């Protein structure tokens, strides 16, 4: 039962007002990037971007486009705030996590601007819960300066194959090494753990591989502890793109399709681990 879009008290003051018939379209994506307590929300005409960072080396961005929402109204070019993501997720799940068939929780979100809390109205079966979450000054997200003109290697593959590899990765390895090359081994994930070295190879003509554009042989290592944070989003996704640029910075992009067919994107940027030279 969707919340009526009647004007609430203070709706007139809302710089950001958004509504969703099914809150799970938002909460599932946010759960996937909840590896830290705080998240920065940026709302623009394109939709909502939620950013979470870890130790200045990893950044996750979830994009929920305007058309995913049943209503999305913005009074300014760009609206930004920071909230405690753990608290937000508890509020979004206030009526419980499991969904009985045909029952969904509707969400209405309202933000009145700097200094105001983020107000959520959640409704299920005629019961309404109102949450006011305190906001903070949004921290400037790091600009990883990753642009497509600088991309040396890119692959797009079906997530199935990556999911298998990531679920088997040797977590005793401090790093995950990614090798991308126009020649053998094409695309390789390697670990160096207590049980020895392990390699996962993806040949360029495999059925899983949808796009293979590698121009230069590159080997880079990334801290396993950082990349572990990307596995939840990988698990939700159906397609993944892996790109590295000339500095060895990594960009992972995941296409996530919800139960009702809505599409959202989650991307990760990660700095290479300092100690290794590029080949």
């Amino acid at each position: 039962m969707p919340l009526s879009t009647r004007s609430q008290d203070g709706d007139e003051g809302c710089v950001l007002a958004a509504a969703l018939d099914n809150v799970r379209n938002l909460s599932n994506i946010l759960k996937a990037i909840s590896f830290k307590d705080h998240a920065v929300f940026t709302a623009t005409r394109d939709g909502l971007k939620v950013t979470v960072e870890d130790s200045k080396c990893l950044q996750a961005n979830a994009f929920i486009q305007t058309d995913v929402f049943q209503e999305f109204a913005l009074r300014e070019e760009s609206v930004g705030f920071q909230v405690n993501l753990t608290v937000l997720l508890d509020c979004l799940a206030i009526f419980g996590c499991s969904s009985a068939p045909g029952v969904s929780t509707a969400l209405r979100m309202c933000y009145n601007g700097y200094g105001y809390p983020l107000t959520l109205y959640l409704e299920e079966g005629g019961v309404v819960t109102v949450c006011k979450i305190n906001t903070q000054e949004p921290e400037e997200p790091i600009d990883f300066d990753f642009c497509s003109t600088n991309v040396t290697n890119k692959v797009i593959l079906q997530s199935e194959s990556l999911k298998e590899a990531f679920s088997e990765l040797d977590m005793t390895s401090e790093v995950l090494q990614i090798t991308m090359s126009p020649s053998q081994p094409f695309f390789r994930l390697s670990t160096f753990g207590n049980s020895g070295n392990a390699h996962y190879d993806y040949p360029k003509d495999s059925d899983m591989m949808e796009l293979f554009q590698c121009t230069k042989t590159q080997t880079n290592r990334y801290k396993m502890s950082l990349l572990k944070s990307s596995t939840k989003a990988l698990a939700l996704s159906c397609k993944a793109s892996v790109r590295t640029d000339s500095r060895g910075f990594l960009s992972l992009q995941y296409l996530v399709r919800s139960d009702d067919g809505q599409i959202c994107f989650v991307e990760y940027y990660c700095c290479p681990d300092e100690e290794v030279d590029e080949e």
Partner: protein
Amino acid sequence: MKFRAKMIDLGCLNHFTRVVNTIAKLTKSCVLRLTPDNLYFVLSVAPGVQRFCVSVNFFDEYQMEGLSPEANEICLEVAPENISRALKTAQNAKAVKVKLTKKHCPCLTLSAELPSLSSISRVVTHDIPVEVIPRRLWHEFKEPTVPDFDVSIYLPPLKTMKNVVDRMKNLSNILVLEANLGGEMNLKIETDLVSVTTHFKDLGNPPWGDSASQSRSQSWDPEAMAHARVDVRKLQQFLIGQQINPSKAMCNIVHNRIVHLILLQEDMSLQYFIPAVA
């Protein structure tokens, strides 16, 4: 002291079993209070927070003789898990008999007559050890009277309430429960980080009649919310009781003092008192 009782109705037996199983989930030890008319299970969850269960008519036959004619009651401490286990074997019994016996120690002996192919029934017997509670402690287990409350209201669907309270517990230790005589109830938590309020409407208010003890609610402004700040975990504990599928669930609030919760299931009531915190 004497006690003997018999159950032959399968529905009653299932019912009794469900109640005992729920109690076993809540506590390792409870008190069985036998009076001439009723059998009570008394659970002490914490000092001042007692949970009672009254059973009437679980038994088709019920006879007891208390400590003495002036003190015509029996109080026994027992582990509900033991009764649960014994009842497992009695699931399809034709009849279940319970009596107070003395083996190597005082026991509740439960014997179930099970159906069998031959004309002779099989009987399975369990001796459940109990401890007799001395008379000087009986006052701790007396059924408290319904407090003179300000507002009485039917609870919302317990599953919904449980989901909400479980989430609120992640956010705060203290929860405010408030309700008015217009069938509205709110659950609220407030911390430095967040405030959350869940609004329930059209719940209905139970008619308590004109009993003199309900004088407070008669002078209570029907629109005004009676509220109490309580420990979330105590409310969570109470909501475990929703497993017995009560037919009615209600709540009496003494403003700023006590929340009195009642679950009714046919001829049984489960009452829970939660004192308000500052």
